């Protein structure tokens, strides 16, 4: 696999005092969906700006598809689609006219433009709205039009800033599914920058977690969980009437259990599989009343919280 983004020792210091990105090394492979996670101000946006050549690194370098972002920003931008957090269109122009303008700016030959627009619009299911003015569009439609807009240039890489921010879950899911389809069918690499994890983690094969300009964790989500918590994709929380030590030992001895935590009458079990059945059987054998059981598939959020609790 080719590396589409390579950042080496990337550093950005604003006004000689504020370090936004601190000696960052990152490699993203072609065809991946990479989640760049972190709270606001962690340096995600600065990385994207440097990646697009809109700002120069203080130190180190970043390249996209073999082009140095600082020295050849236009080449980088012609293969990279960027969807800013607050994507905007010319409201008085039709969807078609907006996309046409983007196509022109990308120097796509005129005879190809209509076809590309049709293709991009059909990929995001906006074909019927082609001749409508953008001001009639809903937020979700605008977001989809934003995707169509980056697809016009047939990019190798798409950077998506906060793809689901402000969308209701149904629409957010649609967007994420579109991203997945595009990734699978067109082989487009996606970088999703977000501080909302539960949405992003559904599609990201690999994530990088940023904090204070540093990449504090990087890898596939399950690996990350294992690295930090010693693995564990699921967390099962159980509310019990009493918590005898033998029970904890018995649960710990169950196969597939990674860790068991106790917080008063509350048990927190981390495991790699859904072991609710085994655990409840064990509890029932001990004749302990179980008042509640819940399973959470949010190890990533756990990780995230653990890193950023202090900051928020």
């Amino acid at each position: 696999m080719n590396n589409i983004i390579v950042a080496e020792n990337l550093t950005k210091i604003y006004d000689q005092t504020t370090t936004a990105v601190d000696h960052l090394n990152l490699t993203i492979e072609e065809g991946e969906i990479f989640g760049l996670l972190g709270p606001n101000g962690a340096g995600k946006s600065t990385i994207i700006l440097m990646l697009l050549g809109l700002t120069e690194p203080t130190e180190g370098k970043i390249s996209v598809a073999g082009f140095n972002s600082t020295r050849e920003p236009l080449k980088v931008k012609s293969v990279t689609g960027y969807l800013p957090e607050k994507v905007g269109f010319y409201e008085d122009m039709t969807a078609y006219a907006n996309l046409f303008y983007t196509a022109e700016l990308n120097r796509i030959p005129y005879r190809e433009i209509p076809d590309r627009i049709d293709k991009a619009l059909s990929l995001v299911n906006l074909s019927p709205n082609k001749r409508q003015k953008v001001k009639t569009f809903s937020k979700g439609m605008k977001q989809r039009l934003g995707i169509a807009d980056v697809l016009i240039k047939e990019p190798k890489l798409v950077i998506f800033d906060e793809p689901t921010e402000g969308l209701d879950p149904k629409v957010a899911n649609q967007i994420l599914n579109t991203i997945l389809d595009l990734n699978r069918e067109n082989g487009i690499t996606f970088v999703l920058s977000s501080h909302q994890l539960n949405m992003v983690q559904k599609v990201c094969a690999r994530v990088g977690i940023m904090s204070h300009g540093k990449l504090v964790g990087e890898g596939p989500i399950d690996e990350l969980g294992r690295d930090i918590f010693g693995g564990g994709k699921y967390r099962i929380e159980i509310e019990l009437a009493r918590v005898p030590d033998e029970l904890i030992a018995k649960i710990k001895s169950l196969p597939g259990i990674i860790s068991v935590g106790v917080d008063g009458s509350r048990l927190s079990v981390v495991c790699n599989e859904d072991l609710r059945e085994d655990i409840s059987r064990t509890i029932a054998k001990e004749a302990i009343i179980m008042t509640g059981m819940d399973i959470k598939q949010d190890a990533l959020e756990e990780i995230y919280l653990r890193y950023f609790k202090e900051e928020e």
Partner: protein
Amino acid sequence: MRSVLTVFRKELKDHFSSKKFLILLALIYIAGLASTYVALSNIHDVASALDRHVFLRLYTTGGDVLPSFISFISFFIPIIGIIFGFDAINSERTSGNLSRLMSQPIYRDTVINGKFLAGVTTLSIIIASIAFIIAGVGLTSIGVPPTSEEILRIFFFVFICVFYGGFWMGLSILFSVVMEKTAASILTAIAIWIFFMFFLPIIANAIANGVAPLENATTAVQIQNYSIEQSLLRISPSTLFTETIAILLIPTGGHFMLQPVLESDIANMIANPLSLGQSLIQVWPQLVVIIALAIICFALSYVVFMRQEIRST
């Protein structure tokens, strides 16, 4: 360059389909035709057949009720400039279009260049079209064709108008870069315009009268008063512009407004028109300042825009 043209074309389309453009165009055309009507009804009294620049009188003759075309245009050009520039950048930014544009394979200055070019082009179209329509109406009505020198003067006039409008456009683009809200940028630009247009003359007059009171003044003091007022007024680009077009379009006597001239001196002068070359030499400083101001304003907004984008999300 091609992408500048793309932005340029898109912005031009925006202008030509916007209501504000249509309103401005209608306003200028109505003002232009009204002042031409006034000029035509008064031109007999002011122009003799021996006047070598009868045709230019179409632009410079006013009446009791309505002013001349050049007065109208010196009033409207700043407004056009401001209106075409005040929301150039900040509206793109608030609408979220700017970051999307920035991610396209274009240089960052493409956007501001294209916008400025489109604004200046639109302004040129407005001014040139009304100037030529007046020429056509005038030619039909007075039947005196312009001399080649007069045609050149009219072209220079349009050229200067465009630069003057470019200055105001550059200024309001600068505010649109610096200020986040379009309301703030338009109000600031209009405040500056009002200051130059209405307050500076009052201030200049007050200072001149304070330094060299006119009561029972000798001729020397009167000249001093006039000079002080004139120099203060020249701070204002609108003064420079008015002087420039007056000298350019009133070859006979228009240059007297540049320095204090005693009536006795005028009486001794032969009212001979200046040649085009002489007129241009007379207005050269003003012309250079106007062009420089336009360039400075645009350059400033260019630089601020280029530096500013770095941090935005």
